[in-house]
């Protein structure tokens, strides 16, 4: 089945530094969704990317979908302590209904 790889597994930054997590697949991704999971919490939907080359922004967060739809990235500018958590990408295979295949996630810690 579909496999989604995510790097890095961990990222430690100083507050104010930028952060990027990458999502890759050997096969074409359907639609990419990004989620944030705070420690002890549950995944919270951030955004969905559908089109090849698509770029979307949410305040300090920038999401990109690769031209070949085999990779995606999430970039956070000037991290804050509230950005702490694990960021997951997920491929939405959308067969007969949404079915998410998650990457392993990138755990972000921000030192104040």
């Amino acid at each position, binding site marked *: 089945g579909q496999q989604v790889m995510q790097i890095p597994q961990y990222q430690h930054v100083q507050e104010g530094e930028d952060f990027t997590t990458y999502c890759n697949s050997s096969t074409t991704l359907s639609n990419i969704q990004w989620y944030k999971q705070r420690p002890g*919490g*549950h995944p919270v939907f951030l955004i969905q990317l559908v089109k090849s080359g698509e770029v979307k922004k949410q305040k300090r967060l920038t999401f990109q979908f690769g031209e070949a739809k085999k990779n995606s990235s999430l970039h956070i500018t000037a991290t804050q302590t509230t950005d702490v958590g694990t960021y997951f990408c997920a491929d939405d295979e959308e067969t007969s*209904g949404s*079915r998410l*295949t998650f990457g392993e996630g990138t755990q972000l810690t921000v030192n104040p």
Partner: protein
Amino acid sequence: DAGVTQSPTHLIKTRGQQVTLRCSPKSGHDTVSWYQQALGQGPQFIFQYYEEEERQRGNFPDRFSGHQFPNYSSELNVNALLLGDSALYLCASSFTFLGVETQYFGPGTRLLVL
């Protein structure tokens, strides 16, 4: 508007026992999916219910079964529990609007099998 709710929040069982987890979807949502999230890993798709039937299933053994009720709420049953079943079980509800389906996750049930 209540979001997705799950019960119980925590549960401790022993090997060989059976467990039932419950999920109430977000208002207006008709589809419920279940995911298993082991510690330090991404959630893995178990199955999805729509119109009271299992519509899709992931790579999980038959020990994992489910049900959806007419009010769209759902149950996940796991029989003959193994130590490896210890995980956070997440329920996600969704509906499709203009061809886009967004899943909303509940807080999860943390299951520990001893």
